[in-house]
């Protein structure tokens, strides 16, 4: 279970050095509470992907703080030791395309993360099936990813993101390939799961269909974020 969601303060990221240096992030502040789903919106080149990679512990910020639950991850050049384990145990990812492992069936795609963390196979699969049931895809548990529809694949990807009960899930354009009905269905699931597991979910999107569903939205432009109250009610 999560503690206090995710909080970043003054996060900056500089690429290159000297005259050619580019500041992709210029002191970004952001806070997402447990159980909350916020949108992150910005045009191409705004620093959206860089922010997502910093939040996902894929790249290290140049400065600033990031606190995940109760744990400080970055603090002005200092970072936590094992980013790989952090990504595995404390951050969930949902991508634009589901990117399921094509040679694993649905259950093992979801169960892979706890297995990688050293959980026994049976326990990992039990947790995976529980989640698949919650996402209403338990009937495809033995299917291979290529046998699923786009919506089913995305629900399995969400289950994979949730299986280790991370305090934060980063969703990168999760509804882009889906029609309106399915896109709203995915958002409904994300909101439900956020509340159920007290997970902070950050959804990076351009998708006009789902923007109205957010209660809070962060706009990012030229490496700086602006917070805005959304119109949505979060599928209460």
């Amino acid at each position, binding site marked *: 279970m999560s503690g206090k969601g995710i909080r970043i303060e003054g996060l900056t990221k500089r690429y290159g050095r000297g005259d050619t240096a580019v500041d992709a992030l210029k002191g970004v502040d952001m806070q997402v509470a447990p159980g909350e789903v916020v949108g992150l919106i910005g045009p191409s080149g705004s620093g959206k992907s860089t922010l997502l990679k910093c939040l*996902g512990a894929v790249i290290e910020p140049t400065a600033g703080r990031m606190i995940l639950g109760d744990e400080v991850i970055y603090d002005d050049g200092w970072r936590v030791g094992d980013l*790989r384990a952090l990504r595995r145990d404390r951050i969930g*990812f949902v*991508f634009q395309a589901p*990117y399921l*492992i094509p040679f694993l069936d649905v259950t093992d795609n979801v169960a892979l993360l706890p297995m990688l963390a050293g959980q026994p*196979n049976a326990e990992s699969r039990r947790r995976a099936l529980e989640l698949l049931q919650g996402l209403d895809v338990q009937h495809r548990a033995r299917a291979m990813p290529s046998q699923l529809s786009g919506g089913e694949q995305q629900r399995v990807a969400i289950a994979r993101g949730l299986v280790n009960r991370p305090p934060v899930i980063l969703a990168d354009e999760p509804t882009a390939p889906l029609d309106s009905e399915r896109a709203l269905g995915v958002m409904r699931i994300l909101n439900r799961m956020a509340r159920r597991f007290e997970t902070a979910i950050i959804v990076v999107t351009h998708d006009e269909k789902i923007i109205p569903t957010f209660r809070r939205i962060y706009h990012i432009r030229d490496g700086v974020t602006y917070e805005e109250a959304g119109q949505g009610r979060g599928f209460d």
Partner: protein
Amino acid sequence: MISLAGRDILHAWGKFVFTGIGLGLLIGVTLTMAGVYRGMVDDARVLLDNSGADLWVVQRDTLGPYAESSSLHDDVWRGVRGLPGVARVANVTYLTMQVRQGERDVRAMVTGITAGEPGLPGWPPRLVAGRQITRGHFEAVADVASGFKLGERIQIRRNAYRVVGLTRRMVSSSGDPMVFIPLRDAQEAQFLKDNEAIRQERRRTADNPAFNRPGVPGLLDAVINSQSSNPYVNAVLVQLAPGHAAATVADSIRRWKRLTVYTRPQMEEILVGKLIATSARQIGMFLVILAIVSAAIVAFIIYTLTLGKIREIAVLKLIGTRNRTIAALILQQAIALGVIGFAVGKITATFWAPVFPKYVLLLPLDSVIGFGAVVVICVLASVIAIRAALKVDPAEAIGG
């Protein structure tokens, strides 16, 4: 933890199996090449074993009778027979030539054996059909590899021989089947010329005043007679009496008869170390090239398979998969490909080896060595793909 490599192989089994079959055929060729070399060595040993000799007495300072030509007078055996430690001796001739049977001809090593009884050195030690040679002329015993049948008539030079017996695994060091005929016939066959050549030779001799002296009647006939007969053999084979050391008897023959004598180990060294040495190096080169080609193919296949999984590898790394788990995925697939290939190669080599015209000997030890080499090659070949996989940035899964 589940086996990612195993799951990937099961998922794309057709790709792995067909690739493994392709690789397996290459491995089969490699095993067969090794088998060809082993067969040549075995042929050489069998040739020596089946000759029944303990010592080979040959022309002085030659490596005869198999590796070089050797010529001895056919009465040398009498002197050798009288030396201490010698139990039995026999003249022998070897001549590799085309033996005709009807419309076809077969390359064979025609062996002239001394008249006597089975067990004499040089005689085929066992028959699979028919009987040994009992007449002094125009009978033959042939190796079954020649394709000759009992009762068939075969043509050697101008004479026809009836096949009265068949033997097995009697081949030259080159793999040519042996055809045994009586010694006198073989001596004639070695030097027999066509009628026109004989007439020309006689005319030249008659025109030579040194041989055709009016005052010496009978000289010309004696010279012509000596020209038309062949009193030479290629070697004298010696069987030792019990309790006598080969080296001691060989020394005795060298000292008293001034001939070159080889013991069994020396003759084996000549056949294996000299006669087939070039062929062995040739095959060795082939094996090295095939190993390199196999490694390149495995490396290319594994690299291509890995490139096809870059996105999945990026996702795996993003969600926290250890580098060693990803490396193991690639390594296990490379080894699995090698194992499939080796199994296919071993089976195909076993099935096609008997079809080869030369003896192919597939030794279990070679298979074990081959399997080890395949695994090592697969491990080395996977290094490039593993390096590529470990370079994949997990950020590629996020995009941007």
